[in-house]
């Protein structure tokens, strides 16, 4: 049996109580929402928290609120299935809806939350293994070892950001609200991440993600494309979110965000700049794909051969731009 290590279980009823518990329990305490990322990690002994603080009884973190101005607030504990069943989300923000629906499996989406998805651990073939497997290779930098098997000789971890919702949230200009014993703050979702497979989040240990705030859709058009082996279960090997705002038939603003190619989501700023003032036709989309392809550096630590994954960036960016048009 893959059993969880023992821990102290706490079930606060409010965000204020949660952050106090987290700070008084110290860095050995972890928050859990749906547990579909944390519990497999704990079973594999990636994380062995002393205390698990569950958000299950914190009712005000669940649900969505549409603002009169067309903005949307999504509570961090809203399940992925609740978002998938939200007809308004599907109609107004189809790229986010499609990204959510592409996550894992229906039963996992029934349990997993959007907040957990945003804060998902980074992934690597040498890391996402059980304890015995990892011991056989003497572990790796991300968990108790001193070598990175993906890039031996490297002094950092290259584990991959694999969250499906994140590229779309960034492309849609979403902001994240965080609470801690020191108060609240709101930051662009993009700034939650750091390009480091181990220390991949910029948030403090006792900070809880409470809400995602999406601005009004306005004239933005967007799309999410996901590359993976099977049509279900699998994490993205590459995910591409594209969002475009037009002035007439010319691009006034563009956002292209990738997952699966680095430890943080990758914003393709050069390709975005290239698109300004242009019409989206097959040639322009292809050229933007060529530009986006350059900074993407997938390493050999997920499914599929990395050279092919890099090539797929061209294809997915091109197709994503044409689909968002």
């Amino acid at each position, binding site marked *: 049996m893959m059993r969880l290590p*023992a821990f102290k279980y706490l079930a606060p009823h409010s965000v204020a109580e949660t952050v106090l518990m987290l700070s008084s329990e110290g860095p050995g305490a972890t928050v859990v929402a749906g*547990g579909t990322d944390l*519990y497999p990690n704990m079973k594999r002994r990636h994380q*062995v928290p002393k205390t698990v603080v*569950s958000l299950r009884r914190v009712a005000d973190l669940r649900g969505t609120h549409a603002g009169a101005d067309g903005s949307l607030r999504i509570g961090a504990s809203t399940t992925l299935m609740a978002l998938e069943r939200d007809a308004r989300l599907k109609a107004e923000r189809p790229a986010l809806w499609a990204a959510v629906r592409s996550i894992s499996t229906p*039963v996992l989406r029934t349990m997993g939350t959007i907040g957990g998805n945003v804060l998902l651990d980074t992934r690597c073939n040498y890391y996402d293994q059980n*304890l015995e497997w990892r011991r056989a290779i003497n572990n790796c930098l991300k968990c108790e070892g001193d070598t990175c098997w993906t890039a031996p000789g490297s002094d950092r971890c290259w584990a991959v950001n694999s969250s499906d919702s994140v590229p779309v949230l960034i492309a849609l200009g979403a902001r994240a609200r965080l609470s801690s014993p020191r108060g609240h703050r709101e930051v662009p979702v993009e700034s939650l991440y750091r390009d480091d497979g181990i220390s991949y989040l910029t948030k403090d240990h006792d900070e809880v993600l409470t809400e995602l705030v999406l601005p009004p859709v306005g004239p933005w058009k967007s799309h999410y494309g996901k590359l993976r082996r099977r049509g279900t279960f699998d994490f993205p090997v590459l995910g591409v979110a594209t969002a475009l705002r037009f002035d007439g038939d010319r691009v006034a603003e563009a956002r292209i965000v990738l997952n699966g190619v680095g430890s943080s989501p990758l914003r393709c700023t050069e390709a975005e700049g290239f698109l300004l003032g242009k019409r989206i036709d097959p040639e322009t989309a292809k050229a933007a794909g060529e530009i986006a392809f350059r900074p993407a550096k997938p390493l050999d630590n997920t499914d599929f051969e990395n050279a092919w994954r890099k090539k797929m960036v061209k294809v997915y960016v091109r197709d994503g731009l044409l689909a968002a048009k």
Partner: protein
Amino acid sequence: MSPHGNAAGKPAAQKRAKKVTLTLRVNGEDHEVLFAPHKTLLEVLREEMGLTGTKHGCELGECGTCTVVVDGEPMLSCLMLAVECDGREITTVEGLSTAKGPHPLQEAFADLNAAQCGYCTPGFLCASKALLDRNPSPTREQIRDDLAGNLCRCTGYAKIFEAVERAAAVMRGEPVPPPPGNEDLGGAAPAQGEVTRGA
């Protein structure tokens, strides 16, 4: 950030995790159960309550064989804490049949040979029950989508989808064709106790 614990040494709590007593409502009955708070629903069902119909496969969310129904929704018992199940209505494969007999899904799985080794079957039955309770007339596409978190290494899925469609028809009160007989197996079934071997 989550702490990276010392995997080699046991955390202090491991030595004597304090148990809790909780009333779990399983298959329509309340059960008072004593268990440690880090136990999954899967462990409590199988090891504390003797309900071994729920199977354990990957125990990491990657196969679906541990699926049970919680408050009408399919859930993976391997990734749920039993302490979080108080006040919730849990249905396992043992709770599908009634005094009248097996559940139409169980009948249909048997009639159409939708189980071969049978290890995935309890999970498929629970996920399918949740689906049919929510949507009595799912299309093939909806069945395929909804069962996309359950793996079967034997049947190739076609028989499973057909069985869910057959059960749905029975539950809607529609007539269904008689089940295929043993002639489909290419000969008479072996008498009970008789051993048949391959070449």
